[in-house]
């Protein structure tokens, strides 16, 4: 250990001591997502002396992130989150190793990456990725420290800890439609507190102290300062094999109803295509395409006669979640040519700067 004075106040805790500090220095933790949760988790793991921290995120910092992603400076808007997070950590604690992965987690990179770490922290804002993290953790036998937030409430749990229950044991039905922070709204302290509880679980696992939240989900409500713990059991029927994993994440066609906006950019002047905005009228950034209408998702079913079943329709919302629900809804009503624009208006605005009035 290079400088135990740095860690003195935690080393003098009988539960930690020099031995515990040594365990921390040997630990390798991968944090997926450098957003609101990550911004709380990363500095505390780094400051405590976790020996190696991997950070994965492919986003750039936006001004609307700063109210909750408090490790980033205003001057860093537009820069890579993982690069800035790495910079912050190396200034906070130069004794530890930090690796930045500026890419998206996928079925292709998850398993080989997870192999290199002891603990995987889910600090993402996307349900599909949470299932991917869970399934990859299961295959390479690593614990997953889960956290997520809905408005003023948050959930924390540890999955696949010593072969304990997994995310699928808690939520067997994959529902990709739960709202994220961009869509639902959030304040900084909620993600901060939930991220802190996740960092706490990571430290407990490394140090072997306390009771890890395995087989339990903690639900915290910051408005009435209430927390509840719920027990859940392992369901061995939900275990997945390498073949299941490949089929689910690495086969063609599982994203067929979703389209990247840059792939259809040359179609925005095409009169045969309708762009359908399913956001509410007060949401910004405004997108003004030539052939575009707005029907908020909640009114879509009632106003469905405004649309033609054979028309090619690209649907968007703020971040790509409500547009998926809308796509499924229209497909249920025999619309054949509908697709949801991945990433929604937030992704579109970057490609459309000159067409936007903010």
């Amino acid at each position: 250990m290079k400088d135990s004075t740095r860690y003195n106040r935690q080393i003098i805790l009988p539960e930690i001591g020099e031995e515990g500090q040594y365990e921390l220095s040997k630990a390798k933790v991968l944090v997926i997502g450098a957003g609101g949760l990550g911004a709380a988790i990363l500095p505390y793991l780094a400051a405590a002396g976790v020996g190696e921290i991997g950070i994965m995120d492919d986003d750039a910092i936006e001004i609307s992130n700063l109210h909750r992603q408090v490790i980033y400076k205003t001057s860093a808007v537009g820069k890579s989150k993982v690069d800035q997070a790495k910079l912050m950590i190396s200034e906070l604690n130069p004794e530890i190793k930090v690796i930045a992965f500026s890419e998206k987690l996928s079925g292709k990179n998850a398993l080989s990456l997870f192999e290199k770490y002891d603990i995987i922290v889910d600090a993402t804002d996307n349900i599909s990725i949470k299932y991917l993290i869970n399934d990859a953790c299961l295959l390479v036998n690593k614990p997953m420290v889960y956290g997520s937030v809905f408005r003023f409430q948050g959930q924390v749990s540890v999955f696949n800890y010593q072969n304990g229950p997994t995310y699928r044991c808690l939520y067997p039905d994959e529902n990709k439609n739960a709202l994220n922070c961009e869509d639902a709204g959030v304040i900084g302290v909620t993600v901060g507190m939930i991220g802190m509880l996740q960092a706490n679980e990571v430290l407990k696992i490394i140090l072997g102290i306390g009771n890890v939240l395995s087989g339990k989900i903690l639900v915290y409500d910051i408005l009435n300062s209430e927390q509840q713990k719920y027990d859940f059991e392992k369901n061995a029927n939900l275990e997945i094999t390498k073949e299941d994993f490949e089929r689910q994440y690495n086969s063609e066609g599982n994203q067929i109803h979703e389209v990247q906006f840059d792939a259809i950019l040359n179609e925005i002047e095409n009169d045969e295509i309708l762009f359908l905005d399913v956001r509410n009228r007060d949401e910004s950034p405004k997108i003004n395409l030539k052939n575009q209408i707005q029907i908020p998702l909640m009114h879509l079913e009632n106003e469905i006669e405004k649309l033609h079943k054979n028309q090619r329709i690209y649907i968007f919302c703020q971040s790509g979640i409500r547009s998926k629900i809308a796509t499924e809804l229209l497909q249920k009503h025999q619309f054949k040519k509908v697709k949801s624009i991945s990433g929604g208006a937030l992704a579109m605005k970057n490609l459309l700067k000159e067409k936007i009035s903010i």
Partner: protein
Amino acid sequence: MIEVKYFGAVAEKTKCEFEKLSFSEELSLQKLLQDLNEKYEFESLTFSVAVNQKIVSKISDYTLQTSDIVALLPPFAGG
């Protein structure tokens, strides 16, 4: 009398965080969930169900007892 707690997007639908329900005949958990679904139209919302702080199967034929606390816990996605 039982208490039902709602979280996250489920509480958005019910417009309350908890309610107390009384029932005269035997009421199974499955029937309670059916009734709540009719009342609040949860539709595509997914959630897990806990009775007295323990997650249980939604199709459980468990008969609810006086003072049981049921909770509907949807997954969250923000981060």
